[in-house]
């Protein structure tokens, strides 16, 4: 019952509600104001009021799983995503909803001058609902932060896997970081593609920057070497530090069919030798 009444109250006071609420939001940002314009805030707030009134008029209650709340949820999701990318903190983002409480409560009070019971009931409905909406906003904020981070990681994956041609027909792939999961697939794929694209017949895979070589990493390396061989390129694995060499032996991984060198420089020397090239001091 309280639902449509709340919609009426909001409708009657829309203009000054909007003005006061926007001002409160601007004030709460203090020095961070420049991250968001008053126009954007006012727009967000207007959209919020519209979605709120719409849902209230359809007696949506405070259970956000109900279908009546779907456009409100879309809106809050969108706002949270905006704020997350604009560098707002989670609480600064939740303020959007929570700062609406005070202006709304004042208006509710003015509508129930001599009816404290009616006022309490209406207040309760409004509080419960705004809390739900505020929590939802925080959740969406966190979710979009995660998405941002995930995307950045993905971008890093692509950035951090350069295949360089160190000599005509000789490619080098310096690997840095964790070598399992998604990254290895991408890295190895890049190398195989580069072998084809540049018509290379030697590839140096340098693992100096790989902290752990376990059986999964070893398996990926072995597979890559085998695939490269099928495409007519020999691989040299370099940068096998003493402690890594020891663990590989203890694990029982057989690298006997693979060319290995302690350093990238050694590997390059071997590569040049295989191409019948010599480096001489002039």
């Amino acid at each position: 019952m309280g639902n449509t009444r709340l919609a009426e109250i909001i409708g009657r006071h829309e203009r000054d509600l909007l003005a006061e609420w926007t001002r409160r939001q601007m004030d709460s940002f203090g020095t961070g104001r420049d991250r968001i314009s008053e126009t954007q805030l006012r727009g967000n707030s207007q959209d919020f009021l519209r979605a709120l009134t719409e849902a209230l008029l359809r007696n949506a209650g405070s259970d956000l799983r109900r279908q009546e709340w779907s456009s409100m949820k879309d809106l809050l999701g969108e706002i949270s995503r905006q704020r997350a990318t604009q560098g707002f903190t989670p609480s600064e983002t939740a303020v959007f909803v929570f700062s609406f409480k005070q202006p709304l409560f004042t208006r509710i009070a003015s509508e129930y001058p001599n009816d404290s019971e009616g006022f309490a009931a209406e207040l309760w409905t409004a509080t419960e609902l705004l809390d739900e909406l505020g929590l939802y906003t925080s959740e969406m904020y966190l979710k979009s932060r995660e998405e941002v981070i995930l995307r950045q990681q993905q971008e890093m994956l692509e950035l951090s896997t350069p295949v360089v041609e160190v000599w005509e027909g000789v490619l080098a792939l310096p690997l840095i970081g964790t070598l399992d999961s998604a990254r290895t697939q991408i890295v190895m794929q890049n190398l195989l593609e580069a072998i084809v694209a540049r018509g290379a017949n030697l590839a140096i895979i340098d693992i100096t920057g790989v902290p752990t070589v376990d059986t999964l990493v070893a398996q990926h390396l072995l597979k890559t070497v085998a695939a490269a061989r099928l495409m007519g390129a020999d691989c040299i694995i370099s940068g096998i530090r003493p402690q890594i060499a020891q663990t590989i032996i203890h694990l029982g991984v057989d690298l006997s069919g693979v060319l290995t060198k302690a350093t990238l420089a050694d590997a390059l020397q071997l590569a040049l030798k295989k191409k019948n090239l010599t480096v001489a001091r002039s």
Partner: protein
Amino acid sequence: MPVVKTVELPLTRQEDVVAVRQRTRSLGVEIGLTIVDQTKIVTAASELARNTVIHGGGGKATIEIVKEASKQGLRLTFEDCGPGIPDLERAMQDGYTSGAGLGLGLGGSKRLCNDFAIESKVGKGTRVTIARWKA
């Protein structure tokens, strides 16, 4: 055996394996393991953590700094409530895999550590405990 410090980590996704490695490494540094010993226990941790995720369907890792007499070491326990291992002897054999691995994880971890114990019950789960002592 007195436990100086305990760290528990979840093991449900591939990324959790990375966290277990990192934590094992930092605790190894804390008690002053040599680079070679750090690398050995971290590699064993990586194998067993991945087994917990892939074969055991997820579980948890417990990393402890333990003291015995005058020596200090790292003790790691990997537990899951997965399908268990029907034939432990065969699972420990180098080259045996029920999946698509190299089948060297269990045997390799045993060789990389000072202590190695494995218990498993079909339908109940698996627990592997390893330790590496400071030389």
